[in-house]
């Protein structure tokens, strides 16, 4: 009756990693992301040039006098600015994504699990936030409460949680009707455990993908805000470099292109990793 081959029981973490490692583009994304993170953490120590110092003549093209990325309109070292900007971009990207996941998952889970009047109220609130013009709304928050890094993070998180909430709710609505949730109910499992230990893990794959994409879009959002000048003037960020050099785009296009490429590569790497995570965390796709 049970002559199927015995399978080794391995830790789900190792199984997920093996699945992830099989996806080449995801691994490439992860490598890029690790390199960027290492650069952000150790770069300023290894390349101690102050990004605010005027080190050479303005508008020196890349390679000139040993400055790999050249200098900007104030003669500041662009490489030093990119390295220091990576810190700000990654921190804001991650922190804003965490803020919006916490808000979005909580609201989506409550709405999808309890249905009824709770769902009505929470989803109307979600729709309210959804129809606000996001960039304008976050600009208002930053303009009102000051352009500090925590406030910018919060502003980005507050305007971007709606997608997570809707995805979470949709997954909860689907999963709560499945028999294994009913089986857990019959096993006497309490609502909180049902929501966060039984349903949420099964709702995770789309949420994880959305979160990974959100880190990317938060980085873009931050770039947009600092391009418009709504940024902490005491720190460098990629968007700020683009914003401050935008007038010279025709004469010194590299001052805008290089930070733009940095944003592009980072967001792309994050998307690739998110995609790989999706495949790795879904046990149904795992090899038997």
């Amino acid at each position: 009756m049970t002559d199927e081959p015995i399978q080794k029981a391995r830790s789900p973490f190792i199984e997920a990693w093996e699945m992830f490692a099989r996806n080449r583009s995801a691994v490439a994304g992860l490598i890029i992301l690790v390199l960027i993170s290492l650069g952000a953490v150790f770069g300023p120590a290894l390349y101690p040039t102050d990004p605010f110092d005027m080190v050479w003549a303005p508008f020196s093209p890349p390679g000139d006098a040993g400055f790999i990325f050249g200098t900007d309109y104030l003669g500041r070292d662009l490489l030093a600015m990119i390295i220091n900007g990576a810190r700000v971009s990654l921190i804001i990207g991650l922190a804003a994504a965490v803020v919006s996941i916490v808000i979005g998952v909580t609201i989506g889970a409550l709405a999808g699990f309890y249905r009824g009047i709770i769902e009505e109220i929470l989803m109307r609130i979600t729709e309210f936030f959804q129809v606000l013009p996001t960039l304008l709304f976050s600009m208002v928050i930053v303009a009102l409460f000051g352009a500090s890094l925590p406030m910018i993070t919060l502003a980005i998180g507050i305007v971007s949680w709606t997608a997570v909430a809707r995805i979470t709710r949709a997954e909860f609505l689907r999963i709560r009707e499945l028999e294994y949730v009913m089986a857990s109910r019959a096993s006497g499992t309490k609502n909180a455990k049902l929501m966060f230990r039984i349903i949420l893990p099964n709702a995770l794959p789309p949420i994880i993908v959305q979160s990974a994409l959100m880190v990317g879009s938060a980085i873009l959002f931050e770039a947009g805000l600092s391009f418009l000048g709504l940024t902490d003037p005491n720190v460098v960020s990629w968007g700020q470099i683009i914003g401050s050099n935008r007038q010279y785009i025709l004469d010194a296009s590299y001052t805008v292109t290089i930070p733009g490429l940095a944003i592009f590569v980072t967001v792309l790497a994050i998307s690739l990793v998110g995609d790989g995570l999706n495949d790795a965390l879904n046990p149904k796709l795992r090899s038997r």
Partner: protein
Amino acid sequence: MTQDSPQGAPLLQVENLGVRFAIKRGGLFGEKRYLYAVDDVSFSLKRGETLAIVGESGSGKTTTALAIARLVDAYTGRVRVAEQDVLGIEGEDLRQIRRKVQFIFQDPYSSLNPRQRAEDIVREPLQSLTETSSEDQQKIIDRLFASVGLRPEQKRLFPHQFSGGQRQRIGIARALATQPELIICDEPVSALDVAVQAQILNLLRDLQAEFGLTYLFISHDLGVVQHMCDSIAVMYMGRVVEYTDRRSLFNDPKHPYTTALLSAVPSIDKKRRAEMKRISIHGDPPDPLAPQKGCHFANRCPMATDTCQQSQPALTDKGNGHMVACHLVT
């Protein structure tokens, strides 16, 4: 076995159970209508016996089972398990009842959480419903895996690594974990292929003998039911139309619907096959949202009369405890 009830008293008593679902149309202030999925259903079940509920899809048999297990809310009626009311209780009382009443689900592919390991699935009721220590839990799990015919090394596997029959064994082990008295089996074999069906049915019978279990067995397959149960309730459109012990139902079916159902059971016995005339029922059950006032079966019944169209027959004893809801049976 607990001794808190006298021998022979029914373990499960269902009286006038009704389940309805609200169907809302047209937004927030739309008119509310009810679909009566289960209507005035009564039966009782003695300890150690098996009652089968049979009927076609949509006859309310699964909803009846879910209502007894408190997984769907009933709006009226009374359910008692071991002399204890089941409906309307909450908190600790409900926990006590859940420990006594467990459920085996129809589809072993959707009834196991894909992200839990087999042993954690079986552990869940132990964790939520009992205060057993984790060493004791592990012992119970080991014993259950042996009882349902799974190997110890399979404990750490995830559901997708099992076949359908093995998955249903995990579901059975989960249902047995809290040492329940009543197990509700909702078509436990209908999603499995025939060879595996027989294995699972035999397992259920062996476990019944071993642990003294009482089964409420839901099925649409009279062939399966024949080998499992002591008594049978036939449901149609949310109502019980015939309710009696197995022998009288199979030898002397009284309700026209039951007769038609039985004629559809294939037989390999040539003599029996020759005797049996296939009665086919035409059409579909009527719209459950627009119930007619007469017998629900009247529009498909080959023998329906005017009386059948006008008044609903009650489930009455037609001799020797053979309950039938039909005007034509005397």
